[in-house]
């Protein structure tokens, strides 16, 4: 099966061929590298930009204004903080111009910890991003969702930010992408650039991909249960699933695990129904805990389901500290790990109502 990053690449290829993508660009996005995570190898419209995130976002806006369909990459979300103003502007141009200029642009960027990235390659971005009205923001946690959300991001006529969990980029999916060859080695051979000399003349042999759209704003319930509701996305999602599976065995209580997939708009119906059913809630993400997007979700739940809650709802998030240190003792004690998630989940499940 394709890895998450291969799925992104295949989606971008499909976008170039069928959805009008005109430019895939950013730092080291074009040949020879094809992106520091290989997300853009072999793409027809991929090109290398100057080292200038403000220029990247500005260029994407300009291309979109003039009828192009750009997909711009910020190499790591950690380097998007000097361009929040332009992201805000991109999100408000349709509104500011009273509906004259839609801005069909996609920005993709790796987000979150888990690659031993130290202070400046471990940031999460979703809480910041959720404060950008006018943007839609998605964050897949597996290859198929990455494919389907990327296609939706490209098709949508609004600015869409695709957050790619750094830690999961090389994880293989469990489901085949529509059009993906059966054999993962064949896929690799066809679309992964070789190392060394061979790369200079290499051309990808793209499989014939098919369209597949995961609607923005649609969550995915990856485990059903009634012991509690767990909402997560990105790196912590598979950990939440694992914790739920282990607790199902150990305690016999099945947690309902929701992969939110879209940060904004989010699938309120799915959240609301699940919380109504379970009366117990745990939200898990790894962004810093002060003014965290999970706190927004918690507030919505309080607003609508305060009297449905059987026990105190919880947020498990990253610590409010200036960074994640390189020595793994830092990461292990700064952002939620399996053990923390399992602990929190069992507390929510076991607390006496």
């Amino acid at each position, binding site marked *: 099966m394709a890895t998450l990053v291969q799925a992104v690449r295949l989606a971008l290829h499909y976008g170039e061929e069928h959805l009008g993508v005109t430019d895939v660009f950013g730092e080291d996005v074009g040949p020879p590298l094809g992106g520091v995570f290989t997300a853009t190898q072999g793409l027809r419209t991929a090109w290398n930009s100057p080292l200038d995130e403000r220029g990247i976002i500005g260029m994407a806006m300009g*291309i979109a204004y003039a009828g192009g369909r750009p997909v711009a990459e910020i190499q790591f979300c950690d380097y998007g903080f000097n361009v929040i103003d332009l992201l805000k502007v991109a999100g408000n141009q349709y509104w500011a111009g009273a509906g004259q200029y839609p801005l069909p642009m996609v920005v993709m960027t790796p987000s979150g910890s888990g690659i031993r990235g130290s202070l400046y390659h471990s940031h999460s971005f979703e809480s910041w991003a959720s404060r950008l009205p006018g943007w839609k923001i998605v964050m897949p946690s597996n290859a198929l969702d990455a494919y389907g959300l990327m296609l939706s991001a490209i098709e949508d006529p609004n600015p869409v930010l695709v957050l790619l969990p750094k830690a999961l980029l090389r994880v293989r999916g469990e489901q085949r992408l529509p059009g993906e060859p059966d054999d993962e080695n064949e896929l690799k051979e066809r679309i992964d650039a070789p190392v060394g000399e061979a790369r200079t003349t290499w051309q990808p042999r793209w499989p014939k991909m098919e369209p597949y759209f995961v609607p923005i704003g649609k969550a995915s319930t990856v485990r059903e249960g009634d012991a509690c509701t767990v909402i997560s996305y990105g790196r912590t999602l598979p950990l939440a699933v694992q914790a739920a599976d282990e607790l199902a065995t150990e305690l016999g209580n099945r947690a309902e695990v929701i992969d939110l997939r879209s940060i904004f708009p989010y699938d309120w119906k799915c959240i609301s129904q699940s919380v109504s059913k379970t009366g117990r809630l745990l939200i898990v993400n790894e962004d810093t805990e002060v003014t965290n997007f999970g706190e927004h979700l918690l507030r919505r739940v309080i607003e609508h389901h305060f009297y449905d809650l059987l026990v105190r709802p919880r947020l498990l998030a990253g610590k409010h500290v200036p960074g994640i240190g390189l020595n793994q003792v830092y990461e292990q004690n700064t952002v939620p790990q399996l053990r923390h998630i399992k602990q929190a989940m069992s507390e929510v499940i076991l607390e006496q109502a």
Partner: protein
Amino acid sequence: MNSDPLTGDDAVAILPTLVYSGRESLPLEQCLTIHRLMVRARVMEERMIKMSKSGLGHFWIGGPGEEAFNVALGLQIRRGQGPRYDYLHLHYRNSALMLALGMPVIESIRQMAMTATDSHSLGRNFVGHFCKREWNVIPVTSVIEVQYAMAPGTALMQKRLPDSEGVTVVLGGEAGTAEGDFASCLIWSTLPGREVPVLIVVTNNGYGISTPACSVHSERHVVDRGIPFGVPGEVVDGNDPIRAWHAVERGLMHCRATRTPFFLEANVSRLFGHSSSSGALRDRTQEDPIERFERILLDEGVDRGHLDQMHEDAHTEVEQAVEQALNEPMPRPEDVERYTYAASRPEIDAVYPDDYTGLPN
């Protein structure tokens, strides 16, 4: 009797002469067209200043003092929608340019009056913050200099079109060039082998709000910033519409023909200070480009009466526009969320397939 080439209105008898400024000249007919536009812009701006003072608006900012350059530029823009036409990344002092493009006065007044009929922003944005997609006018933002980061993008799309002469024009003040986006514009417009047709304009009025340019600029001319990147440039007296016209023509020609950038710095006046926040008082130390141009036209034999008539016509036009605009409907509470999202499709966005409707529910 000829008629005004832009509006079709009857104009004065045309003296078949050229009006000179140094070695450069323009036909008198064209000068009168320019003059008329300059006056309309001025009268409109002065009326809007009055509106801001009498409570018919909350804030005024605009371009009195920049009319000569803005009209010269506006008249040479290829107006239309899409990359075959010119793109305009303006700032907040370009009302005269918009009038030169053909914008009716009332469009500006409506924005000043914050009516629901304000086509630029639905009563949302400050006056002078134009947005007009049918003419490729990108929404003006108050955030200084961001337009310079976007301009190479529209120009890139134009460069790719075969047989196109469409170019991108980006404008801003001299103080704003201290923002990194100005450097980004130079860098991204000159990527080797991927140069793009942008006319980079800086209107230098000598001030950023209260800060004198000479206190924060070590460049001899702002246009020197193009030197390291091989961007040709020119400094022009932007208060002289004849010189401005030709400088703009050279700049646009360069961009249209070579599909590479050109840098134009125009020295202009700021006749009413920065904005209504600083009082919007007439600054008599500043040269008035209209008065100056009128002296030249009078020297050329144009009738004082004709010039006065232009002012009178403009007043009448502007007063009518104000009267009309003030009778138009205002935005309503339900407009707050309107136009947040362009319509998508339910298979693509399950929550906001159309527009924003409040938090997801």
